[in-house]
């Protein structure tokens, strides 16, 4: 376990060194993504200025929601940057590299790339959480702990969902379009107040498109402690993590490699 941790830390360090080779590009992407998120949030500020709340959710909830989702999404796709490219890695035979080295293939593949723009999401998420704390007027060490736990659960479900969808590549070939749609769906639905949905839609958000585990559920848990919610986010994270690893390795047996000329960035 310690050896795997040292290996992953070394991978992240190498990713950082690679990103720092192009400082200006790195900084531009970080700042650009922060601005992009801020502009998107302006919509909710205007909305809540007019309607105050949606079924019990107010602007402060939205700050908590964006705090958890952006921090989780940013950290997840920064540390496991290949989670959004797994499908093309499989389809183009690029898993060969990870299979030829003595490390867990999925972990190695996911952590071998960092998205610079994700650092912008991460920083925006922290700022949003800071704003949520200020506007809610409640802050203590436990809230910080709940925030860290909520973000971890969010990362686990997000990355697991992306791995699950893209593992279908092993069976059905190219899933780039499916991946793009699934990615947009999970991000979009995780950034909406959960109180907007009920019945089948809500069921979908806990199962097929598990956006509730990435956004609403951990965000509510961060705002106020609830043992049931803690159990739900832990169970959600654990189940999706297990499923994604299981499906990926089942699919890996069908991996067919390829002959495309490649470059390691």
């Amino acid at each position, binding site marked *: 376990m310690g*050896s795997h941790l*040292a*290996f992953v*830390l*070394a*991978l992240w360090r*190498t990713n950082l*060194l*690679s990103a720092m*080779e*192009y400082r200006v590009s790195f900084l531009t992407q970080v700042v650009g993504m922060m601005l992009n998120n801020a502009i998107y949030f302006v919509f909710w500020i205007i909305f809540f200025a007019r309607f105050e709340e949606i079924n019990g959710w107010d602007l402060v909830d939205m700050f908590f929601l964006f705090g958890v989702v952006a921090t989780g999404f940013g950290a997840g796709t920064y540390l496991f940057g290949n989670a959004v490219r797994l499908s093309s890695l499989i389809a183009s035979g690029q*898993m*060969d*590299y990870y*299979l*030829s*080295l*003595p*490390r*867990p293939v999925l972990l190695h593949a996911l952590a071998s790339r960092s998205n610079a723009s994700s650092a912008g999401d991460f920083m925006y998420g922290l700022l949003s959480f800071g704003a949520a704390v200020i506007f809610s007027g409640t802050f203590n060490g436990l809230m910080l702990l709940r925030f860290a736990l909520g973000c971890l659960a969010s990362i686990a479900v997000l990355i697991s969902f992306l791995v699950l969808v893209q593992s279908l590549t092993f069976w059905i070939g190219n899933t780039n379009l499916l991946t793009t749609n699934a990615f947009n769906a999970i991000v979009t639905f995780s950034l909406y107040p959960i109180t907007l949905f009920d019945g089948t839609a809500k069921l979908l958000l806990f199962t097929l498109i598990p956006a509730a585990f990435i956004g609403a559920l951990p965000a509510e848990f961060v705002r106020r402690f609830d043992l049931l919610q803690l159990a739900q986010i832990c169970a959600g994270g654990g189940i999706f993590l297990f499923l994604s690893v299981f499906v990926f390795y089942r699919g890996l*047996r069908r*991996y*067919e*490699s390829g*002959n*495309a*000329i*490649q*470059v*390691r*960035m």
Partner: protein
Amino acid sequence: MNAISVRNLRKTFQTKRKAAGLRGSLRALWKPAFQDVEAVRGISFEMEAGELLGFIGPNGAGKSTTIKILTGILHPSSGEAAVLGYVPWQERQALAFQIGSVFGQRPQLWYHLPAVDTFYLFGKIYELDDGSLKRRISFLAEAFEIEELLETPVRKLSLGQRMRCEVAASLLHKPRVLLLDEPSIGLDVVAKQRLRMTIQRMNELEGVGVLLTSHDAGDIETLCRRVIIVNHGEIVYRDKVSALKRRYLTVKTVDVRYNEQLAPDFRLPGVEMLKVGRYGAKMRFDTRITPVEPVISGLAAAGSLADVTVSEPSLEDVISAIYARTEA
């Protein structure tokens, strides 16, 4: 003890078939058709510990598929294989600590970083402690003459320099077997020669066994004592490189020049005349049919010799002939 042992290895891929054009695409959408392609057809061979074994064949012969099965990248359809006692597709991680691999078309060095950064990452991947890793990097840098290249971003290196760094990276953990898939692809003559020398040197210094696939007969001729030739997924020839030469390099071409005019009807028994001029001739004979001595005597008797060149076909020509024979 055998480093690699392969028994009746087979690999079949299923590929989609589609007729040309829109109609073909629509039909494939409605009723897709698949075809089994046998990339490897019952290959069996052994490689001894510390041996340099050449594994050559044309495109699509099954070389890379075999190497990928032996590194644990692909599962075979049937058959058995053991590399250093490990079944590659079942014990991939344990095996990867013991072997190194280089795929000419799949760089493992990080493109934007100096090679030394990848070396340090590999140190963590192979669980090497910092002290041993530094000593190993220093040793390999000297052996591969890459001291000056280690701190240059990989994207700025020439292909030959990069490939030497690639092979050095694959040797960081002192593997007992090195699987090289087309390491010399795209290299110029000088770069090829340097790479061959370093591979040979590491074999001599550390006894690392090398299974080398290549399109380039020169790689095999320079490095390997034994060669396996594959075509269409099957082994079509296996023996020592020297035996291959003895068996197939029997055709000699002679280019001769005289100080005086040759007789217009100049001929030698058992020799095929390719070209006869006023002051010289070019001819070919097979030493299995016509001994060398009467040919040389006949040439000397024909006039005052100015120059004689005897050449034999390149190993590449011989291998092409073997491919052609198996095609037939």
